[in-house]
């Protein structure tokens, strides 16, 4: 349990550190993620492999 709490703390700290990046830095990160989202979408067509939950989350969040 302690391990999980530590992991969650580290994750929260990591998320806070990303929030404090400059806006242009965040936009550049989003540009990189966008390319991944596009590739995931392309590979998860009706005849493609079954979509993973991570792929579904990315697909649902991206607009």
């Amino acid at each position, binding site marked *: 349990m302690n391990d999980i709490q530590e992991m969650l703390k580290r994750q929260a700290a990591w998320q806070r550190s990303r929030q404090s990046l400059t806006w242009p830095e*965040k936009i550049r990160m989003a540009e990189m993620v966008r390319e991944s989202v596009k590739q995931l979408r392309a590979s998860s067509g009706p005849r493609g492999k079954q979509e993973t939950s991570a792929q579904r989350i990315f697909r649902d969040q991206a607009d």
Partner: protein
Amino acid sequence: MKELAQLLNGMREAGVISDYALFGAAAQMRYTEPVATLDADVLVKVPGSGRLDELGPIYQFCATKGYHPEGEAIRVGAWPVQFVPVFSPLTREALEQAETADFEGVPFRVVRAAYLAVIALSVGRAKDFTRILALLESGGVTRQEVASLAARHGLADAWKRFERRFLNE
């Protein structure tokens, strides 16, 4: 994105649009951590709006600068850009109250956090609710600011439902 800021500033200087402001996920990232998004959304006010091809002059201007349509968007550098004419008192006010941010030395008009939240509330999809929560958590806007703006634009009930569902324990 810098290229988009330059294009929009040029478009305004040329009188093709009266004003513009970035909104949606790309604007939200001024306040929150980075989020996945596929395109950039820009609110625009077009002089003499009301004509059927309201976006026509924008598309023409973009074409003269070498930017061409890609589906329902115009590709500007890395970003497909969706131009959205102001369509309600809320979006009109969001545009008027937008602030001028700095993007790598280029002025870039961006919708303020409270308006981003209330526009998301008015759209009301799951990802819009996520956006509101992210804005609140970032401290970019307070619950009181959102409540007040929502009430002024006839969204008090929608905000109460959102609060009941996501914020009240």
